[in-house]
């Protein structure tokens, strides 16, 4: 290790680092396709050490800006090489309270790893795997970072306990607010619990991370359907919340409207995953929720949810599991790693195929799906080539369970029950600071943008927290040392007197 008086270590170059990415242990595809244990077993300490060596510590740090929550990635990797693992955890948790979750489910290839300097000539540093390793070690060692929190006297209500709500809750709790998170289900966690299956993100890990939020003083109130039990307006006007964040997610699954969708055996991926993951239908009859798994399953769509549905069905004992997608593999929205895992486990992919009709038997159970082959035409609005049906190319696939994973629409409950402004697609309208049309009410995640990723929702939660702090006049630690554009005029030693975050004693009332 370098010391102040020793010779400085030479700058690392691409030729000095381990050339190949350190592989993570994975369960054998044949074996894992029949169990719900985690596919990726994670790094061992020696793997983490080796992989950490691959970071060039480049001065540009593109990975930091590539991360939606701007984790100081090179700093935590340096702590790993210094064997200061607790330090690495401290660096990560300064920006992200849920490293074990994000290390597993972030699409790193489009974020930090996608812009990694090493990635220009070799495979990028496995930042996600390192983050997960640090997070899991923290759980094992019982580390948690409970900063000294000075109560600010403000009360913040959060609607929805998914990734957006959790991220916002963490930031507001650290800012000294009394935070209550409301969840409609009987357990907190949102999509991390009901949606993402255990083999990708064990629910026990989610519970551990929620435990850390509780240690920050965050309260979780389950079985609470905000909008119907009480409204957003009541939270502000009657219940004494100084600010509210809405992170209810998109919900409301889409169907495509082809004939036969109401046959029994046709269901949304949300329903399949919720029954299996949150309600434990896979342990029926020890748990009461039924599922009736299919023997020959067809899943429509090729996003991450579709991959989860496909792989869940394999594990529930399906003999064949097929994926129908109207575009080609290159356009599939799922993470490359997920498609790869699904292929390894034996999922059959029908690229460039789209369902036109679902056929039933005399008892109105699904029997088969009639599909048509597609060819890619001119690019559409999304820049992807538009699929067009090929005449006379129809074919049938026999199936007893059809799962729709083609996206979601806006959940209507908050819109039905408040005077919040919505956009024309039914999502909550916000400005660039995620403020809604009601003062003090902020919104973020899928209920604002439509379906996106876990980390994007967390990023939105943190962005909303920043706006909320500004709204409440709380000091935002991110901007403490920023020069005010107008200079120091009208400020007290450079501190805006309107800010309430610097005085020890104050009253919000």
């Amino acid at each position, binding site marked *: 290790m370098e010391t102040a008086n020793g010779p400085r270590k030479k700058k690392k170059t691409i030729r000095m680092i381990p050339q190949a990415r350190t592989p993570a242990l994975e369960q054998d595809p044949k074996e894992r396709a029949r169990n719900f244990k985690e596919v990726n077993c994670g790094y061992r300490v020696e793997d983490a050490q080796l992989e950490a060596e691959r970071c060039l510590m480049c001065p540009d740090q593109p990975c930091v800006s590539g991360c939606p929550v701007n984790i100081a990635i090179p700093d935590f990797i340096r702590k790993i090489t210094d064997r200061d693992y607790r330090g690495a955890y401290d660096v990560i948790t300064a920006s992200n309270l849920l490293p074990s979750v994000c290390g597993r489910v972030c699409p790193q290839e489009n974020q930090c790893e996608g812009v990694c300097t090493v990635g220009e000539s070799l495979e990028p540093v496995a930042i996600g795997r390192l983050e997960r390793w640090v997070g899991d070690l923290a759980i094992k060692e019982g580390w948690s970072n409970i900063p000294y929190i000075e109560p600010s006297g403000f009360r913040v209500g959060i609607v929805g306990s998914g990734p957006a709500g959790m991220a916002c809750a963490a930031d507001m709790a650290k800012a000294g607010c009394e935070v209550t998170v409301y969840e409609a289900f009987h357990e907190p966690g949102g999509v991390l619990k009901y949606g993402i299956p255990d083999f990708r993100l064990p629910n026990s890990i989610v519970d551990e991370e929620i435990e850390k939020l509780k240690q920050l003083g965050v309260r979780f109130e389950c079985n609470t*359907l905000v909008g119907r039990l009480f409204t957003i307006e009541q939270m502000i006007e009657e219940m004494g919340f100084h600010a509210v964040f809405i992170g209810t997610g998109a919900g409301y699954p889409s*169907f495509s409207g082809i004939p036969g969708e109401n046959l*029994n055996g046709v269901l*949304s991926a*949300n329903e399949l995953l919720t029954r299996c993951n949150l*309600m434990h239908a896979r342990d029926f009859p020890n748990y009461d929720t039924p599922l009736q798994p299919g023997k020959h399953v067809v899943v429509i769509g090729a996003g991450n949810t579709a991959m989860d549905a496909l792989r869940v069905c394999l594990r529930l004992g399906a003999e064949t599991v097929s994926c129908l997608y109207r575009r080609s593999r290159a356009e599939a929205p799922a993470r490359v790693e997920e498609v790869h895992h699904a292929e390894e486990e034996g999922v059959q992919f029908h690229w460039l195929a789209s369902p036109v009709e679902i056929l039933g038997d005399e008892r109105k159970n699904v029997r088969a799906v009639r599909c048509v082959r597609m060819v890619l035409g001119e690019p559409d609005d999304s820049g992807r080539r538009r699929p067009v049906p090929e005449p006379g190319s129809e074919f049938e696939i026999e199936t007893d369970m059809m799962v729709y994973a083609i996206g979601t629409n806006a959940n209507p409950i908050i819109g039905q029950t408040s005077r919040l402004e919505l956009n024309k697609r039914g999502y909550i309208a916000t400005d660039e600071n995620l403020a809604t049309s009601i003062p003090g009410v902020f919104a973020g995640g899928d209920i604002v943008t439509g379906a996106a990723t876990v980390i994007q929702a967390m990023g939105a939660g943190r962005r909303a927290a920043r706006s909320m702090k500004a709204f409440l006049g709380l000091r935002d630690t991110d901007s403490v040392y920023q020069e005010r554009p107008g200079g120091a005029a009208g400020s007290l030693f450079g501190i805006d007197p309107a800010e309430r975050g610097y005085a020890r004693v104050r009253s919000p009332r």
Partner: protein
Amino acid sequence: MTTNTQASGYEIVARRDFSDVTYLLEVRHPMLAKAAKAGQFVIVMASEHGERIPLTIADYDRDKGTITLVIQAVGKTTREMQRDLKVGDRLVALVGPMGIPSHIGHAKKVLCVGGGLGVAPVFPQARAFKEAGAYVVGVLGFRNKDLVFWDDKFRAVCDELILCTDDGSAGLKGLVTEGIKQAIAKHPDIEECVAIGPPIMMKGCAEATRPYKIRTMVSLNPVMVDGTGMCGGCRVKIGEVVKFACVDGPDFDGHLVDFDDLMVRLQRFKPTEREANEKFNENCRMRSIPAAAGGAT
């Protein structure tokens, strides 16, 4: 097996057994009692390993801070609840009120029809119409005299009440559609009808009022998981459109509802339900506890 030792959860403050299969639970939840409106429902989980079952709110008492659920023991979960739940026990989950409240308009004369278990959820609507100043004609249908419940409650809020039983052991002999015919014959100026009960009965009611073009609202209770619009299990066909009963309903125009589709979809889990019921029967035989442990109040 009920988790009555834990302090969290929602306390059962009263239980009444109407018959071998129908029972009433009154549960403490002051906030819910305050928010509940006619036509809404809740989702209940009786135990940690339980399923989430949707139940229409049969009554609410804002002063006492309680809501009332009337339950029919048909599946494994509802039979287990019937066997195990006592006053003082706690439900592990109770969430609501869900769904869009019933629209109580300014109709001057309305018909409130309840069949079997549907008698319970139609009560708050009858009361709301009465409070809104309407002339309320109630039509209640049961299989026989022993199954009759809440006729007294209805008499208090209805201007007229027609009781029907399949075998004629009480009131009029015949289905509720008979009662509807009589009511319409006597009151040709009925403007609106609310019908709640098994799908086949609601279908019959919709057909009975269709020739008279009386607006008929029905309350649908399809299979669902979350009750918040997220799973789509509860999709129903209303005319040419597919709606989610949990967030777009549960009330729909009975003249547009595709009841055949609804009835098919309600059969979805029949095989698993049978399996669960058989297993439950086996467990019951193995237990030497008397089945009537709940006890009527």
